[in-house]
């Protein structure tokens, strides 16, 4: 089962350490503009700090437009075949997340290769905004949050060892049959 690099924007502080480590690891230079992950910040409306990185789509939009078939999904990573890439950048425009980057120093587009399965950015993220989780676990947190914030729940107060607590519950319907 492959693992996915997942972004939790609510936990991102916008520090850009991910950009730094990505560029130093892949290009051996201190240049956040050479990273395959970038943080986009908007403020004050809306307030978002969003790390943007390749989702390794199984049906990649980038691959679909590639005229030389240089992009292919294999073992959880959309890989770029450097030999056949013509640097037309159709992939950069096609990616629905804008997660493929360009830098003037290089002809090839810059895209996440998952660092061979153990992404450096995940290891160095100081706030836990970047995570590597099994594919099957995707959406778990959202599902749970969604259930917990379900607005139709009822609640009662009760006391446990003298401390006031609240229990919330979704009551079964009592419509007439």
């Amino acid at each position, binding site marked *: 089962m492959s693992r996915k690099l997942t972004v939790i924007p609510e936990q991102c502080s916008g520090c850009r350490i991910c950009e*730094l480590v990505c560029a130093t690891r892949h290009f051996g230079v201190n240049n956040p503009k050479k990273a395959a992950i970038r943080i986009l910040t908007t*403020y004050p409306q809306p307030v978002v700090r969003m790390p943007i990185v390749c989702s390794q789509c199984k049906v990649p939009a980038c691959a679909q437009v590639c005229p030389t078939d240089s992009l292919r999904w294999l073992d959880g990573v959309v890989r770029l075949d450097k030999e056949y890439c013509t640097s037309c950048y159709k992939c950069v425009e096609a990616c629905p997340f804008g997660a493929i980057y360009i830098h003037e120093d290089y002809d090839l587009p810059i895209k996440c290769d998952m660092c061979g399965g153990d992404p450096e950015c995940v290891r160095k993220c100081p706030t836990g905004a970047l995570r590597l989780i099994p594919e099957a676990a995707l959406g778990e947190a959202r599902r749970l949050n969604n259930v917990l914030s379900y607005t139709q729940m009822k609640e009662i107060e009760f006391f446990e060892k003298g401390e006031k607590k609240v229990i919330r519950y979704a009551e079964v319907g009592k419509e007439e049959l």
Partner: protein
Amino acid sequence: MSVKSGYFRRHLHVDLSKGVAERRTLEEAFLEKYIGGRGFGAKLVWDNLRRLGFTIDPLGPENILVVAAGPLTGTYLPSSGKNSFVSISPATGLYGDSSMGGGFGTELRQTGIDVLSIEGKAPQLSVLFIDNGETTILPMPELQGRNCLEAEGLIKQRLGTHAVHIATIGLGGENMVRFACVNADWSRNAGRAGMGAIMGAKNLKAIVVRGHADLPVYDLPGLIAEADQAFKYMQEHKYFKLWQQQGLMNVIDYANEKGILPAYNFKDSVFARHDQINATTMVDQYKIGDSACFGCPMCCGNICLVKSGKYAGTVVEGPEYETCAMLGSNLGLDNFAAILSATRLCDELGVDTISTGNIVAATIEGYEKGIVSLSDLDGEEIAWGDEDAILGLIQKIASREGVGDILADGSRRIIQEWPEMDKVILQVKGLEQSAYDSRPSISMGLAYATSDIGAHHTRAWTVAKEMEEGQNWTDDEKVDIVIYHQTVRPLFDMLGVCRLPWIELGLSEQHYANFYKYVTGNEVPLDDLLGLSNDIYDLTRLINCRLGMNHKDDRLPYKVWANPPLTGPNAGRVIDQEDFRKLLSLYRKRRGWDENGVPPAQVAEKFSD
């Protein structure tokens, strides 16, 4: 050893009057001696003053504004996102600088320059756009009157990109409020010493940078190994999570407990309702996200949102301790939502929250005491904790309406206008005091009195240490710690990094000497780096002396020696004037300055190059 890397060796000088930009090469000796940031700024300001014969109007076209990052800015190490704004301050008429975090400094360096200096005055309101190797001055009179956040949005729209970093001024800067700040990335400010007014005087609404260049590093693997150790050390520190969650707001409870939290214009040093404006209140009710400067794992910035009530919808990055104390307890304000609103207003208008908090507080006290009359206040009453009146007065200061026109000129003008206000407002050399009460800490009093930019805490922050372990310090020890801080702390501004990992999490100074070595290839012992930092302290002192600073300007604000705090652990305590004079005299002797605080002739020779 010599500097082998770490710099582009480029100085970009822009003359706004002539509309020209010139790229100059920086000599190796300059890089080695002045390092970067505040060091570059002090030297360029000094050279400009020598050219002018030390006669200068801070708001005249002849004054230069230096924007400089350091060799470590934007590099792979903790909290490397700082840069300095340096000039002659319109608040003090003397040397002034202020640093800012965020991503502006990194982007500035990525355009391929180490230092930017700006002189002259643009014929109309303009924006300086440094796009990699190209520099253009774009007239944008349509930005007039726009607040900092609006201006940033409009400039991005006009340039058709969001991938730029912008340092802008608001109404405060345009109107040359003498404590106007420069705001970048929406909410990071170079707050103190009136750097925003300098931009306003130059008709410069914003500096926009976009750069793609590699930042030169001599030994990147060495730097990464050293930095990874530092990152690990920080993340394992017992207070690391607290800093991520609360940032500087954790200081409110500490300052209140120790009796150094300003309340009611420093009438008191504890605030009864401090629990309504502390970190717990912020985290529980207002915080919606973290915010960090470039490369910083501590993310001390807090993004807050007011979710209900009169101020609902107010989003602000902050407040941090200084802002919360100066716009909160110091104004008798206990409604955290109102403090957030005032902070946001200051961000929008581009005025310094510390000076603004001081001046509004002094106005309230002046009115209470009858020094400032109701007609002086344009018939509008103001009182402690009066949210509407406080927000209204801040707006009037930035737009220079009515009494705001006097208050906007800072404490010097206020004292000229109402001489009795000298006893009310806390300032040194014309800069209003930061939010740490110095009455129980004479070393902090000395730090404020001898700080080169006026009563600011960044040069030496000795109050906590003296409160905790310094009650029996000898005079020598007190002077030592002030000089030690004044030597170490400015080094961070020269290197272009934040000092919080060092002061708050105890990251060792040696790490920084190592970072410097890996980035520049110049192997300099820590003590020598500190020596260079100390030289800059001498240089800024020299600048101040040549600009006519009086030896009496190393002073304590009136309240610090005459009015003790009313309650709390330090009730009744003041700094004794005679003790202070002795300490100051010892301090000058230890620095090698004469009785009047003037550095000897050989100091000037050091900077005659």
